[in-house]
């Protein structure tokens, strides 16, 4: 649609129909929500004027749930029921936690074998990270709706670029559970690049260094005339500011000669004190870690800046390893980077900046608030995906998948189907064959990672193709297709091509929630709120129908020339029919007619797309046409 609209620069085509859309940065330590107001992205504050909401959820007595600072206040006295850094557990199993020093809760799994999405035991029951994250997202949604004065049309949710498929699915499920319409999952460094690039009118090759509370990402992008092309990404989803706190806490623990295992409360207090000292050392030469253990017993330790730097230099070095890998994958040399953009509160640490300056030979760019830049970029993208951006003010993001996707083959080896750093959306097909004579079924095991052995990669899904006609070994042709959409989410299908036996799977087995599960959770939430599911279904069907009517009516008017008279008459009458149904109250009839009209408009849509491609090839872009108009 957007390509066909011609309007004044910087003016929304229909200002009165602006849709309310937000960008949400769901962070390990803090979360933010931002939107576009008066053509400028801004973070929305709470009633106290704070834009950052601590990513903390407390499950209190009598069903009370506290979020943010109210929850954090109880981190000391109710440590097991006050969940922080939940992002570290998204799409993770208990088996994944081994050796994670920040894992200080009581965990369980639904299956009992340590696999599958873990849950955290609280006094209100076992909560999955998806449910806990949904509480944070719901708080931000409420904040935005109060601030903007209406229900949200949709949201862009950011995720670390290095999140794997299970973690992405978990993030999307959390947003759905919070009642948000997810316009897109957007990689955090890409969001930051959009905010930075549009604000500074930057062109060239940029490296985004994003060290958050619990995750580290590095992405290299080429910025050219409004197109943000990610060349490569690398990172570590278990490396962040939290780990610097832990290193300092361990140092204090060892120096004090403590031997007993700390209580959850003691651990929480020690980490909070270490974090305070770390933040103080950004400006001060020394800081004190002071912990009151209760019963009149306390400990205190002075730490010098240099000491903190040498304690945590190995963590900084790990980030540089990822930086080097990203440069290698992007086939870009350090000296070809036009700027290094800092994202995430942890990039305030002076030795991080010094290491980057040494590596790139120039100081990193720190002229945007590293806490807010991701949310701002997400807001810009949300505004565009909601259809609010003006024709001239559009940009395009071309992102990549962070980790290779493949299938298990004989001997526990991985056959890569889509290599890491492939631009999305992407689809690849590969043929496999049977191993034994008369084999009628094939087990497909989908994995993600760079290693050659299945055991070293992340298992995403297992599914079976059954009903293969018996043939001699090697005669069957099993075509397996991997498709990754613009959210970076994978779906897989397999077909035996000589017989057309088919199996499909959207990869969300043990980690995400099934759509049915989300629907039932939402349903109970609505039941609690006294809403009527029937009314909701009708409202949704009408919204879909009206969106289709609006889009198609506009397209038919603009491109009348692409239709012959009979086609024009047929489409017009179907549009009128759907309009008529949408005024009624039969939501199933509306949904059926919407789908029918969608199908009927397929050829027309294809012709419009062909025309757009021809225009792109002949260089007749709408922005240059616009200047002539």
């Amino acid at each position, binding site marked *: 649609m957007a390509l066909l609209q011609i309007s004044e620069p910087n003016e929304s085509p229909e200002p009165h129909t602006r849709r309310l859309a937000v960008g949400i940065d769901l962070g390990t330590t803090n979360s933010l929500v931002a939107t576009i107001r008066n053509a400028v992205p801004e973070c929305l504050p709470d009633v106290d004027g704070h834009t950052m909401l601590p990513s903390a959820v407390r499950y209190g007595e009598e069903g009370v749930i506290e979020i943010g600072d109210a929850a954090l206040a109880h981190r000391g006295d109710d440590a097991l029921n006050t969940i922080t850094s939940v992002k570290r557990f998204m799409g993770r199993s208990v088996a994944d936690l081994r050796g994670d020093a920040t894992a200080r809760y009581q965990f369980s799994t639904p299956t009992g074998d340590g696999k599958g999405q873990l849950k955290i035991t609280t006094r209100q029951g076992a909560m999955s990270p998806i449910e806990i994250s949904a509480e944070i997202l719901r708080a931000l949604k409420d904040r935005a709706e109060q601030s903007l004065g209406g229900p949200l049309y949709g949201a862009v949710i950011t995720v670390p670029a290095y999140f794997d498929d299970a973690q992405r699915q978990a993030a999307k499920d959390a947003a759905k559970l919070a009642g948000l319409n997810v316009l897109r999952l957007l990689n955090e460094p890409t969001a930051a690049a959009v905010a930075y690039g549009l604000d500074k009118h930057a062109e060239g090759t940029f490296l985004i260094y994003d060290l958050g509370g619990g995750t580290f990402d590095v992405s290299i992008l080429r910025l050219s005339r409004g197109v943000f092309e990610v060349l490569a990404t690398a990172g570590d989803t278990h490396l962040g500011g939290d780990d610097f706190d832990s290193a300092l806490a361990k140092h204090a623990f060892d120096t004090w000669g403590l031997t007993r295992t700390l209580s959850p409360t003691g651990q929480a207090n020690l980490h909070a004190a270490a974090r305070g000292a770390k933040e103080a050392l950004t400006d001060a030469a020394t800081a004190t870690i002071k912990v009151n253990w209760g019963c009149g017993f306390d400990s205190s330790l002075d730490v010098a800046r240099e000491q903190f730097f040498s304690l945590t230099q190995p963590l900084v070095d790990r980030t540089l390893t990822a930086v080097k890998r990203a440069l290698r994958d992007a086939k870009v040399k350090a000296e070809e980077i036009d700027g290094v953009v800092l994202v995430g509160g942890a990039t305030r640490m002076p030795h991080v900046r010094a290491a980057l300056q040494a590596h790139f030979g120039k100081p990193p760019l720190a002229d945007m608030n590293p806490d807010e830049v991701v949310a701002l970029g997400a807001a810009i993208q949300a505004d565009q*995906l909601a259809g609010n951006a003006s024709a001239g003010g559009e940009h395009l993001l071309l992102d990549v998948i962070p980790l290779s996707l493949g299938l298990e083959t004989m001997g526990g080896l991985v056959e890569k189907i889509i290599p890491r750093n492939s631009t*999305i959306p992407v689809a690849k097909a590969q043929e496999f064959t049977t191993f034994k004579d008369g084999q009628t079924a094939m087990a497909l095991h989908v994995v993600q990672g760079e290693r050659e052995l299945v055991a070293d990669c992340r298992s995403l899904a297992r599914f079976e193709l059954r009903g293969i006609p018996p043939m001699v070994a090697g005669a069957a042709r099993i075509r397996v297709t991997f498709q990754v959409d613009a959210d970076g989410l994978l779906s897989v299908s397999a077909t035996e091509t000589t017989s057309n036996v088919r199996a499909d799977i959207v990869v969300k087995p043990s980690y995400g929630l099934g759509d049915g599960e989300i629907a039932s959770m939402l349903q109970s939430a609505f039941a609690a709120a006294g809403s009527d599911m029937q009314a909701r279904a009708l409202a949704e069907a009408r919204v879909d129908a009206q969106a289709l009517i609006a*889009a198609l009516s506009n397209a038919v008017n603009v491109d009348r020339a692409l239709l012959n008279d009979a086609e024009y008459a047929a489409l017009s009458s179907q549009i009128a029919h759907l309009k008529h149904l949408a005024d009624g109250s039969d939501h199933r009839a509306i949904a059926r007619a919407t789908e029918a009209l969608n199908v009927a408009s397929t050829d027309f849509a294809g012709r419009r797309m062909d025309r757009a491609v021809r225009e792109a090839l002949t260089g007749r872009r709408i922005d240059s046409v616009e200047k002539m108009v």
Partner: protein
Amino acid sequence: MNAFEAFGLQADTNIDLSALASRYRDLQSAVHPDRFANATDVEQRIAMARAVEINDAYNTLKDPVRRAMHLLSLKGIDALAASDTSMPVDFLMEQVEWREALADAKLKEDSERLEEMASEITSILHSLGDTFAAAWRGEHLPVATTLARKMRFMQKLGDEVDAALADLEQ
């Protein structure tokens, strides 16, 4: 549609990579699903399929080895067909020597040697690419096919050298 047609180009060995990158951005700007946020479901699905095709075509055209394979396929030749994998003996001997050198450099963790190998491989790939172009234009297709296979061998070797270098950095 072949990759060249998708980019409105004549099938040829000669490609201006920066013009290709610029055309790629123009094409994605026209078809990417994000540009159809307000469009009908059908238009969004078509946009998705087109964006996938253009990504695939771009990957084929910008990579000299994939481009060579694609040019041959336009002449009805599958250079990777398992039925015919014969390669000149002297080339295979060279490959053995390369592999030995790679294994040796990995064992000694000799990143300097690996970097040297990487740049040697790059220049060999360049000259193979030039020879391929001459053979393809002269319609010497069996020669071009062998050259394309040699390019693929060298590219795989280069990938392994890169992986070895990345391992040393860890």
